[in-house]
């Protein structure tokens, strides 16, 4: 890694001030799970790293009638173990539980999980000056793309690596972003941006701005997260599906269905959501929902089978909620 200054912030305010002084050349460190890899492989070469892991205001979980609020620096292991999360937001608990390995869940934070950079092997190799790094080519198009996206691609074909993001979007979560200029809140769904608007980033965070907390509104539904990975530990989603459904009796009253590992952002499938409304979740509706979820898929040369796989994963997620 290159030489950089390491500033440990003790409050949100000091963190924001440090970041404001070096807006373009600063990186934020919380759990370090993603950033340290980026530093070691020279994908990130900051002048200053601002550590926010010790800021008390970012390390709490609150739960009341309005919903559940989680500070950005809360470790994944603490998200998994929190009673409100396990009782009310199964999809989030299931998603956080399958992130990386136990070591990663012990160190990694929920904010970091949402803000992490993609795992694309071209992006992660310094030798490829790809679109994401300001270059003019996405090497995956002509190259090796078994892990790349089947939806929402172009001009860059990464998949968003977060497990928690699809779950949180299914749960209709919002995020708070803060900089010295102030604070803004937006639905998590609007936090992520497609490469067609800006291939060099995956979200709307501005230089000097940090994600401070996540809010999940109270709801009466059931939710689930299914992650397909080739290895049962320490592996990324080849395809994933988060679903949150509200029922009247056996009938689905409303649904939010979000795919992971298949698009540059967590991919909400509204066609599936409206299809499920007013239906019972049967083997047949779940199968049909799986087919609808990938209707717009445009696979690359080596990932056509991700389409088949995603169908099966959507079906599994929905049937899990019916069980």
């Amino acid at each position, binding site marked *: 890694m290159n030489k950089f200054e390491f500033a440990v912030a003790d409050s949100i305010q000091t963190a924001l001030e440090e970041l404001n002084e070096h807006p373009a050349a600063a990186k934020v460190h919380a759990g370090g799970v993603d950033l340290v890899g980026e530093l070691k492989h020279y994908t990130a070469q900051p002048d200053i790293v601002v550590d926010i892991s010790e800021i008390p205001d970012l390390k709490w979980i609150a739960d009341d009638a309005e919903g559940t609020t989680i500070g950005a620096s809360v470790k994944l292991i603490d998200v998994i173990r929190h009673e409100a999360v396990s009782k009310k937001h199964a999809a989030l608990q299931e998603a956080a539980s399958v992130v990386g390995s136990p070591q990663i869940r012990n160190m990694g934070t929920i904010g970091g999980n949402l803000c992490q950079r993609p795992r694309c092997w071209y992006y992660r190799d310094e030798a490829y000056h790809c679109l994401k790094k300001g270059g003019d080519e996405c090497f995956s198009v002509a*190259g090796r793309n078994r892990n790349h996206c089947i939806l929402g691609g172009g001009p860059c074909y990464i998949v968003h690596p977060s497990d928690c993001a699809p779950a949180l979007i299914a749960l209709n979560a919002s995020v708070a972003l803060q900089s010295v200029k102030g604070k803004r809140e937006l639905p998590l769904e609007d936090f992520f941006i497609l490469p067609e608007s800006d291939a060099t980033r995956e979200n709307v965070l501005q230089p000097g701005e940090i994600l401070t907390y996540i809010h999940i509104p109270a709801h009466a539904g059931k939710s689930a997260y299914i992650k397909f990975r080739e290895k049962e530990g320490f592996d990324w989603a080849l395809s994933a599906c988060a679903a949150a459904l509200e029922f009247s009796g056996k009938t689905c009253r409303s649904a939010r269905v979000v795919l992971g590992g298949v698009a540059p952002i967590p991919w909400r499938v509204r066609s599936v959501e409206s299809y499920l409304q007013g239906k019972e979740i049967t083997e047949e509706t779940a199968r049909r929902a799986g087919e609808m979820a990938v209707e717009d898929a445009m696979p690359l040369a080596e990932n056509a*089978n991700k389409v088949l796989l995603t169908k099966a994963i959507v079906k599994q997620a929905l049937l899990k909620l019916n069980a």
Partner: protein
Amino acid sequence: MVKNISALIGHDDVTKLVQFDVPDGEPGFWDKQYKFVVAGEKPVRRLDGMEKVTGKAKYTYDIYRPNQLCAELVLCPHAHARIVGVDASKAEKMPGVRGVMLAENLDAAMFAGWIIAMVAADTIQQARDAARSVLVEYDAQDFVVLEDDAGKDDNPIRKPSSGNPSIKGDVEKGFQEAFAVHEAEYVTQTTPHNCLETHGCVAEFKNGELTVWFSTQSLWSMQQAVAGYGGMPLNKTRVITEYMGGGFGSKLFGEQFADMCVKMAKKIGRPIKFMANRYFDSVACGNKPAAKMHVKIGAQKDGAFTAIRADCLNYPGFSGGASVATPFRSHYECPNIYTQETNVYTNTGLSRPFRAPGRPQGSFGLEMAIEELCMKMGLDPYEVKIKNVDVSPLDPRKYQFEVGAERFGWKKKFKKHGSDAGPVKTGVGCAVTYWGYSGDPGGAVCRCTLFMDGSAEVAIGCQDLGTGFRTMAACTAAETLGIDVQRIQVLTGDTDIGLVGPLSGGSKTTPTVAPAIKSACYKAQQKLFGRIAGDWDAKPEDIVCRENAVFNKENPEQKMPWNEAAQKVGSNMIVALGEHIPPPDVEGIRIGTGLRGAQFAQVEVNVETGKISCKKVVAVQDCGRAMAKAQAESQICGGVIQGVSYALFEDRIMDSVLGRQLNPQMEHYKILNAMEAPDIEPILIDVFDPVNCASAKGIGEPPHVPTAAAVACAVCNAIGKPIRSLPITPYKVLEALYGERR
């Protein structure tokens, strides 16, 4: 002077009494009538286990010499390039930098990862910073990295080179005689070794001597190599490999980085340490090469093979050669066999031996072809396979197959291909293994020292690459001496021990070393017994020690505890040397089958997601007699685990755009974890074979040969469709099931 001994050879109930000569003063043979007390019976815990788990064991990686410098390499980022110029002037002036050395062979870089230069600095971070500041001008050339692109005439490296075919009988006639014939192409992938400890060394010149701590499988050839690098006489060159984190065949050779470390250490006058990072280890330190095998096999109506033909393309990297055809010629009996191999070159790092070189590849092609032939003929592959190994009673193959099938429950578990109800389908597969006897007569000299307190030391100029070699050595010594294994101290891993030992490759360590240990211990103890014999009016060779008790075989009343007998050693110690002396190669006294084994795998395949889970592997293996049962079983489990990983996960992925390896780290290079490891049942079958006085054969490689093939056959059995390339991924399962419909 010789003595004639009789020995019961064979396996299980199939035995034969043979007689042969043993040189005077050498031990007899551990035949079927000789029951092990220490070796091969009760599991003995790994003697250095505590050192390893507590971090006391010092690996090359852990060596830190006073005044040591850290080295980093400058590597070519291009798959194929002419090197126009190198400018290290900026790097040389950077903080902490003590030297920059350019590599030899700087005309052209043949793969991404080619060494351009080495930088030595006070800290590793300074060395890395400086390595990035070495400016290299490249003239990028056309390259080829994908196997599918490499066989063409415009290959920018060199044209494929074909070897002469190996021919037995007449395959065309054999195919004409066949009732059914199957023909298809089978493809395997390239997999780097990925040893837990990466490649590396520490080189130091001190007091006119060169010492190199080297993570190597071959202490003695490395001594010659580093002496050459440093221009040093052999008797002033020392190589130390006290503990080692695996090699699998990738650490048998001299290394360019070691050459540069030694030369820089000499030039700068300070010790230099280089440990490869995962990137360099993956791209430049060897791999199990890919192969494409065009296989044709024919059988009679009852499944007896009439002809086997394999035309193989091997992909050794930018140069050299590879071979995968041996299994086609040696795993099953067949009157007509034809194999031919061609090397095809790519701009990638060179292949190196990898745990039974070429065998897992060939085994996959062969066993899958048989599986498909059986599927076509509606036969049970187990019945067909066992029919084709049923040779002679002393040959253990049929027996091993039966033992394994019984334990596995093959008859209950086998269903017609693809007939299991979904969505999660179960399937079973089986495959055989073969490895030739590789003990090396004269390849090891061991020393046994007896002390007057009843303890003993065994010294061997060898290296423990992580297999439990020390424990094997201690068990063999304890068995020979008839005393507790805790009394044995094992010295190894250092050329200064001054005793030649084999390289750890070809599964030759145990068959070479165990008989030498037995011989040394026997001779030392005979010297001691010579001092007791007079008192008892007995012959020394009639005195034995079993379970710490010394007694006269001819008069068991005459006995004393080992501790008391050992007092007669006195303060001068008793020292003896031993070697692997083979019994005469007389017709009929050896089993002559090498090492054989059979494996049975059970998988579950989800036909909606393509997910494959290997649930169970039963691995039957002979290694002659196991010198240390727990360590031998551990070798079987290791071979199986690596085999399942090879079957389902591991794959070097090369980029077609810039020609670089895209998964040189553990993130995208998938190796199975504990969660993916099957339940493994290792079954050791004793085969009493007088290849050496201990009946010891090596077991490192043979259990790795058939696993991937058995798993692939099981997947085929589960889904009723063959997957003809490794690794078998969920995508490939989905492709096999639904690809045509898409």
